[in-house]
């Protein structure tokens, strides 16, 4: 009696929690600046306008930011996945001395606050001649995502029944072939998850993007969107419009990816 509504309430709270800020941004993107200063505040735009979208595109090269962010995020994601796949496989399926140490070292990377590493990182990137290029971001992003992606992949590799991989090796696969043709496809949910984690991390990141890649041509979204603000003003409506433009493709992308990931990929493979 009491249980059912409780569950629904929990679900509703979770949904509202997830949606509200995004919806608020969406609503704001149709409001005028002055409306934000009204008290009591308004929820629905009083004078809905698309001006903010016009401004979003005309004040700054928003599409360029989108493109840059996409390129940086995609490339760093691929790089992370590549490195993480190898590392995860070595950690889970191969005989590796000091497995625990390797694992700890890998996770420890995530424990240094990036802000403190900024200056030396800048020096490295300058040394590599990558400042103000995608490369300056791709490499550090790949590293940032590496620990979590490796662990996610490792936990999935762990789930793939060993005998399926054995079958592949008997069928004539090398270990590497077994990894790419059998283990990896069977870990698809993990690969997608790791990919999304890496992608969004790159898509979101601000600090490195500001410091290492300030050239107008290669600027990424978070840095770009903050350019809408003036020294003293924070034009929420235009920024909201830009955010909407930034979020929608990302959301679509992730949902598409997620929907392709079906659960129980390994069912039917093993008896027992």
């Amino acid at each position, binding site marked *: 009696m009491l249980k059912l509504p409780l569950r629904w309430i929990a679900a509703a709270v979770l949904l509202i929690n997830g949606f509200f800020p995004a919806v608020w941004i969406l609503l704001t993107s149709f409001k005028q600046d002055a*409306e934000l200063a009204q008290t009591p505040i308004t929820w629905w735009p009083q004078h809905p306008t698309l001006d903010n979208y016009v401004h979003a595109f005309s004040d700054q090269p928003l599409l360029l930011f989108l493109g840059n962010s996409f390129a940086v995020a995609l490339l760093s994601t691929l790089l992370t996945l590549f490195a993480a796949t190898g590392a995860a496989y070595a950690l889970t399926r191969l005989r590796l001395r000091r497995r625990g140490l390797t694992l700890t070292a890998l996770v420890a990377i995530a424990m240094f606050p990036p802000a403190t590493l900024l200056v030396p990182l800048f020096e490295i990137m300058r040394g590599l001649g990558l400042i103000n290029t995608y490369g300056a971001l791709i490499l550090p992003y790949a590293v940032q995502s590496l620990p979590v992606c490796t662990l996610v992949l490792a936990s999935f590799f762990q789930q793939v029944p060993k005998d399926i991989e054995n079958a592949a090796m008997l069928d004539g696969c090398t270990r590497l072939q077994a990894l790419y043709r059998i283990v990896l496809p069977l870990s698809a949910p993990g690969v997608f998850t790791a990919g999304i984690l890496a992608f969004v991390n790159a898509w979101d990141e601000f600090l490195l993007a500001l410091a290492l890649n300030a050239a107008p041509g290669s600027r990424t979204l978070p840095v770009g969107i903050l350019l809408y603000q003036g020294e003293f003003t924070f034009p929420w409506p235009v920024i909201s419009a830009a955010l909407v433009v930034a979020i929608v493709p990302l959301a679509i992308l992730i949902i598409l990816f997620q929907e392709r990931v079906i659960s129980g990929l390994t069912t039917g493979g093993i008896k027992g």
Partner: protein
Amino acid sequence: ETVLRVFIGGAAQRPDLFRALADRYEASHPGVRIEIGSGAATSELQRKYLSVLLNAHDPSFDALMLDIVHPYQFATAGWIAPLDPYFGEERQTLLADGLPIYRQTNLIKGKLYTLPAVTDAMFMYYRKDLLAQHGIAPPQTWDELANAAQTILKQENNPALQGLSVQGAPIEGTVCSFLLPYWSQGKDILDSNGKLALDKPAALRSLQLWKGLIDKNVIRRHVAEVKTGDTVNTFKAGNAIFAINWGFAWGAFQNDTDSRVKGKVGVIRIPAVQGGEHATCLGGWQWALSNYSRNKAQTADFLRFLASPESVRFITLQGALLPPYLPLYDDAEVQAVIP
């Protein structure tokens, strides 16, 4: 060909105008190319960005436009180079013509580190229409302001309407807000040696004044959350009788499409304490020479050009920005753009 790269943070600093100036300079100096870099709108983000670059001794910018609060730190950190070697006697005229505040900030430990670019000051904006309607003259002192606000608030009986909108969030503007009545008492925070020397009674009075305004509901309680943009928006929405803000806000009130107070805005100097003097907060931007520049001499020359009265006049006229040089305030054309 020499390439000079100039950092001009965000759109608020009007890189477009300086681009035009740079074009002029390029025209008169063949073989020099000027590139303008930007990337962060607020002075805080600019500082974050620059501190990474300069910490890494990065030579990619030759000249920097800095918020007036930054040069001191940058200079002590050795990130910007003194200009004295490149400016002989000019130094004196520059200093003489500048607004008084620049005399302090341009010189750090006796050396010339920066040149003025643009300046800004805080003003009191008020609703001409409301004051006229209630037959109240623009206030000259804080007490007058408080009374005026209270009267109007009572009569308008509009819950959305605030008396005075002022910044209280932990940003630079707030420091200014705090200092306005303080300065108005004729006090200073730095003693002649540049040491911090707060006059406690004056500071206390200053705080009491703010608290009084809050208690009288002239200022809303949440003032500590209010940032510069909030004040602008509140006033723009017609929800404040008075607002203290920077000079740029004038443009916003009069020109923005969503402003409901077009033509209803008046501007006066910041009120004084009873028996005190008017004081205001000056802000602004300055040119500095990166210590890691590979073309210091050439850059200095360009800075000289940028800081020249002609350039400043150009910027003032084109951008309705306050000029940093006293003589310009007498210029008729300039007075036409800035009330």
